[in-house]
């Protein structure tokens, strides 16, 4: 609307409180949209939505064991999402995060196989440091493809994901093969005394979520309280302008990628020493891509990563019971997660349109 038009138009309508309450906020709109899509899908498939929702929402909190599983799934999710917050701040879509998790897991296996008799705290530290290095190296490979050869980080990352899973399979079937039966299911289980200690009767290793929270806290602090974080965000908004202002954009991009790779690598390392205790082909369990969804949903704000990761993890853990309890495929959790992000994008778009109209 032009200037004269806006002068002639009546003063803006001011809503009353009850009208504000009734106006759908973007958050409510996103939630309703997601529930609408998911319910529709369930009705098409001919299953009862209420029973499924009950298991999806509350299944993860029904028993202590399931709660423990949920925490152990939220752990790598938080680590990946906080790493991705860094790369999103730098304006990158780091789709290679899956491969970085796998490489972290592979690197974590090396000290565990070489020096299993070291004192355990030292061994764990060594293993997780290796995991961080492995993930960071893999991320730097994607970063150098992008910065050196101008291959979009999306495609470089995807290619490296396939390469990483090929490498893991090669190790499982080749050099690290389990003695006896040659199984594609995974390497031999690690000795029990080098597993990260778990709570009595649960699969919950308390150290793992603590490490994840430290990682998240670090990312929050770095992004919002340091000059480096400010520079990374400046690069994300406009790399050319940042470059003119004396920020080494290339370096910041590479560093953000390496930081994300290190956090994803630690997630992979924790999958080894705290969850699976062996290298399996699907070691990342899709946690990297789920982390991308989390970050897209929260617009890369670190404070929101924690609650959303927990909610997403509880959907996934809850859905595991679906095939047995109701004979429903568990991928409905993924549908709900995807629908949430899609309708959040929709709600943001609607709000943007409204803001432009006024």
């Amino acid at each position: 609307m032009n200037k004269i038009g806006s002068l002639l138009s009546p003063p803006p309508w001011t809503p009353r409180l009850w009208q504000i309450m009734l106006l759908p906020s973007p958050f409510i709109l996103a939630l309703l949209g997601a529930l609408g899509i998911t319910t529709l899908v369930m009705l098409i498939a001919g299953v009862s939505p209420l029973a499924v929702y009950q298991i999806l929402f509350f299944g993860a909190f029904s028993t202590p064991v399931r709660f423990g599983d949920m925490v152990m799934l939220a752990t790598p999710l938080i680590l990946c999402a906080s790493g991705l917050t860094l790369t999103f701040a730098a304006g990158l879509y780091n789709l290679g995060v899956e491969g970085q998790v796998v490489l972290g897991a592979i690197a974590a296996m090396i000290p565990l196989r070489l020096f299993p008799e070291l004192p355990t705290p030292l061994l764990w530290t060594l293993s997780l440091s290796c995991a961080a290095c492995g993930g960071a190296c893999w991320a730097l490979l994607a970063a150098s493809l992008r910065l050196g050869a101008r291959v979009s980080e999306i495609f470089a990352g995807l290619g490296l994901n396939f390469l990483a899973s090929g490498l893991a399979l090669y190790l499982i079937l080749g050099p690290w093969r389990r003695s006896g039966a040659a199984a594609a299911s995974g390497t031999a289980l690690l000795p029990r005394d080098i597993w990260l200690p778990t709570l009595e009767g649960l699969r919950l290793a308390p150290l793992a979520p603590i490490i994840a929270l430290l990682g998240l806290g670090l990312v929050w602090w770095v992004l919002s309280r340091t000059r480096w974080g400010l520079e990374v965000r400046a690069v994300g908004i406009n790399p050319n302008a940042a470059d003119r202002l004396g920020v080494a954009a290339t370096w910041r991009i590479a560093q953000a990628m390496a930081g994300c790779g290190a956090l994803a690598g630690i997630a992979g390392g924790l999958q080894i020493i705290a969850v699976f205790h062996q290298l399996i082909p699907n070691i990342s369990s899709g946690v990297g891509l789920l982390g991308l969804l989390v970050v897209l949903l929260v617009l890369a704000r670190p404070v929101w990563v924690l609650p959303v990761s927990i909610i997403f993890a509880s959907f996934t853990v809850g859905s595991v019971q679906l095939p047995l309890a109701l004979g429903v495929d568990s991928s409905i959790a993924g549908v709900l997660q995807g629908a949430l992000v899609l309708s959040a994008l929709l709600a943001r778009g609607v709000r943007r349109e409204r803001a432009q109209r006024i």
Partner: protein
Amino acid sequence: MDQLTRDLASVLAAAAPLIFATMGALICERAGVINLSLDGTILMGAMAGFSLALAVNSVPLGFVTAALVGACFALVLCFLSLSLGQSQTAVGFVLALLGTELSSFLGAPVVRVPGPSVPFMPIPILSEIPIIGVMLFRHDLLIYASFLLVPLTWWFLFRTRSGLTLRALGERPEAAFARGINVTRWRYMACIVGGMLVGIAGAAYSLDLKQGWSYRHTFGMGWIALAIVIFGGWRPWRVALGCYLFAALEILALRSQGTLRTIPTQVFQVAPFVLMILVLALVNLIASPTMRRRIASLPKPLQSPVAAIVNRIAAPAPAALGKPFERP
């Protein structure tokens, strides 16, 4: 010799779904919209096409359904990114994941159920020609269609008025707008047509080349199709060449499984994906500004032939690809 001819024929067949997917993506990207949802759309097209073909026992209806599903995904992408101003990358990525999960969920009842498929249809007289007949004319309708699709896309993009308009949307939408073209509406149309082709690519797997449906039936093909479009420099013939090269690599991996037993099969399966990225890097390196400076410092008589070769290999992306269009 016979074996080689038959292998070449199977390469031509194996590339058919990729041809559909890449031509769909190409049309969309030439109009300036990056459709990252390819992988999810292909899976949904495969699942929906197969389910419906199974339910009504009609293969053509299966393809129609797949095309409609592809169009729906493209429509969602367009609405969120073109009308509501969200990032095309973000929307496409979410749709890719959503399509993957949705196909697993809705396709669960038809996993490993035998169903109808496209009937084999050799062309009567032409298929009797010694080598070419076996290679080109002993396939089914879908694969003949894939042969026709590439020249058709090329003709549309580079020889028609509409194709010119469409390419203008990808290069300089402001200029197209100034000429009185409704940029958003054109982009919608390009995306929906492209999305239909991508959906058909999915059904090409489930109803023809990899018959039936299973969990993540065509896993990764959408991402590969996107990479091939970049590899092909957004030009139909080169993109098609990329598809055939990729299919040849796959067939090669399949054939060498028996002879090279020491290497696990999974390593062969990821090799084409990795090779694709390496080629991408190489092509981009050849096209880099540093390379141009090197060419400029070459002795005079060499300069123009070398530059011509580099220009042939390097192909820039449409200038407005992925960028939102704001009305001036």
